[in-house]
């Protein structure tokens, strides 16, 4: 019975029905578009300003000075714990190698006796040039860009990952 009444309403007074239809559609359109925009802003990627991607980070700068070349003894690996990098000096060439294991992100350490980097978590091993040779690590350790600043100090940029044969000769 209720259906009959509804049908009658729909047939009589086309003007009001279409006006009502218009507002129904317009209402839904506004609701859906607003919902979509907010959903995108909330869960969307960084390039559209997604809520979960902070624009300002309170993290250490990715570019930093590590000191004069003479501070590093030739043929040694220096661990800069706070910066999470190794400075590897061979003669006059310098490399900045990440301490972050390429398996699951633990911190590898330099084992002087064996001349290799070892990861304490799952046993990944890397040669002095950062190339993985044992354990679950899938790729070599990251090598970061090293340059010399105007004051003669070495500057590492951890945002720039360079090929593993790159070295800075001073």
């Amino acid at each position: 019975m209720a259906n009959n009444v509804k049908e009658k309403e729909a047939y009589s007074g086309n003007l009001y029905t279409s006006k009502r239809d218009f507002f129904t559609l317009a209402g839904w359109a506004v609701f859906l578009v607003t919902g979509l925009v907010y959903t995108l802003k909330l869960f969307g990627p960084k390039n559209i300003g997604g809520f979960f991607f902070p624009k300002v980070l309170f993290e250490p700068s990715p570019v930093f000075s590590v000191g004069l070349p003479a501070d590093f003894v030739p043929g040694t690996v220096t661990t800069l714990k706070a910066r999470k990098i190794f400075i590897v000096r061979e003669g006059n060439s310098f490399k900045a190698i990440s301490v972050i294991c390429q398996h699951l992100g633990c911190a590898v350490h330099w084992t002087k006796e064996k001349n290799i980097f070892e990861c304490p978590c799952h046993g990944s091993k890397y040669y002095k040039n950062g190339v993985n040779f044992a354990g679950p690590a899938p790729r070599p350790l990251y090598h970061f860009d090293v340059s010399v600043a105007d004051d003669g100090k070495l500057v590492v940029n951890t945002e720039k990952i360079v090929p593993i044969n790159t070295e800075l000769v001073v």
Partner: protein
Amino acid sequence: MNLISYFIRKLTETEVWKSVFRHGYTDTPRNRALQTLSNVWLHLHPVKVPKHAVKIRFTWCLGGLTFFIFLFLTVTGVLLMFYYVPDVNRAYADMIDLMYVVPLGRLLRTSHRWAGHAMVITVCFHMLRVFLTGSYKAPRQFNWVLGVLLLVLTFLLSFTGYLLPWDQLGYWAIMVGTNMGAATPVMGYQGPFAELLGVKINNDIRFALLGGTQIDAPSLLRAYVWHCIGIPIIAGALMILHFWRVRKDGGISGPL
């Protein structure tokens, strides 16, 4: 007339009583049905229970156990929130305070942790039971899907809770877990096709989870909010659907 029954009748005829209790206790089929139907705690249950539903060795009550543990975790979790602050300078100390100085704190924290482990276990066993009894088959396919989502949410609750003590175990667990996220195809900066869309360390899924490129203060806060508010609300909503579907898809599963 007996004085006691007179007062009982007077009491049960007041407006206050009638507005709270809608039916009598005379043992009639109607009152039996109403007892379940009109009770805030019992209305989840069917008015009439099929005989097979009382056979505990078919379902082992695993879904119900999981829900009970979830309620337990909610209560203990809210109590823990009174003493715990998700700040990198305080979190670990607050956890230690809970263990040594807060009254009942050690029991609360320890039971919250154990119950968290227990929920993961009962959820897995629940899923195993549903699979082995074929209870995922028609007409219960949709409820199986809801169940899978709830399983994932249970894992996420367990995972986000792991970081909150801000100790070495939690820190490295989150390190490993979010690095797995970094290896996700397309969405993670170390995963396949990352270069294709310009996905880098500062705009991938790991970045969104941690609120930065490394585990730091924003990560702890994010884990806390997801753990205490975000995921429980989503899981709660899905649980409502899950229980509703149990009823709508022919009641509790039983032997054919």
